[in-house]
């Protein structure tokens, strides 16, 4: 029997002079993972964007629990979006969306 894939949900804080829109953020995250781990590595990450709130500069991502450190490293490597300096921090990680929202938002 196939084992259920365990997921991790990450809540991010985006620090930037300008508001970063959803598309740009998703593109930057995917590019960072691709740049650091290549297509093979990225395929194991199972990355998905759950929500992006440009007004609060927050976002929620989902990834495979085995690839959590890969995602964290990739997020840390993002230094600019649209040629503007940006820093992305992981505020918290949780196994379910419910507990993530309860603890960090």
């Amino acid at each position, binding site marked *: 029997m196939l084992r259920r894939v365990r997921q991790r949900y990450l809540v991010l804080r985006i*620090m930037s002079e300008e508001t970063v829109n959803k598309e740009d953020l998703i593109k930057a995250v995917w590019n960072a993972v691709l*740049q*650091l781990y290549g297509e093979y590595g990225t395929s194991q990450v199972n990355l998905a964007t759950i929500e992006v709130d440009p007004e609060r500069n927050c976002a929620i991502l989902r990834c495979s629990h085995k690839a*959590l*450190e*890969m995602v*964290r*490293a990739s*997020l*840390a*490597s993002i*230094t600019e979006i649209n040629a503007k*300096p*940006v*820093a992305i*921090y*992981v505020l918290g990680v949780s196994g379910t969306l419910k507990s993530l929202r309860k603890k960090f938002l």
Partner: protein
Amino acid sequence: MRRFVDLHLRPSLGDLNHLEKMIGKSYELGYRLVGISLPPDIRQDKVELLKKICNDIGVDLVTRVDLTPKKPQELLRELRRLRRKFEVISVMCDSKPVARQAAKDRRVDLLSFPTDSRRRFFDQAEAELASQALASLEISMALLLSLRGESRTRLFSRLRREAEIAERFNVPIVVSSGATDEYLLRTPHDYAAFATLFDLAKPLGLRALSHNPLDIVKRNREKLSPNYVALGVRIIKRGKNC
């Protein structure tokens, strides 16, 4: 609970607003001890002002000086002059003779190397000397974050080798931000995750951001205290009745 340390902040010291912002951001990200790179000839009142700013924010300031000597003699001269003035001394090892001298001198706390992988002299001989002199290998993350493509790949490869050598010879690794602005700061866990890219396991990465730098600061503060006599010997009471 783990106390996280960022031993290398490089804010613009002339701009107090910028300085406060960076220290505040460090606190927000979970650092409780920050080392700020200071010029060797900094006045004491300026240091006191920095300490006050850090205390108000809730962060412990570690005074640090970065030396970039061209020759070993220059390094020795600088160490003689500055050792008792600063809590942490870092040496940028730009040449092999300087790297060797810095690694064997007990007054040096951190060994830093340029990003160019051909000018990184942290090999087995260097590690052996550093291990005996209790010097640590410093890895500045700002450089890694700002590099891209081939140069970063080469550096990762070189750092992987250095981390392996450091582990084999028990040379502590210190991971620091080296940030000049707040956009280059990351949380300790993010840095530890980034350090896995050069095969520094997560627990070791977290250690490089907490215990290892904390040990250096504790050791040096004890040495700089007026009660310190020698290793393991200190004055516990002064007065006529002793």
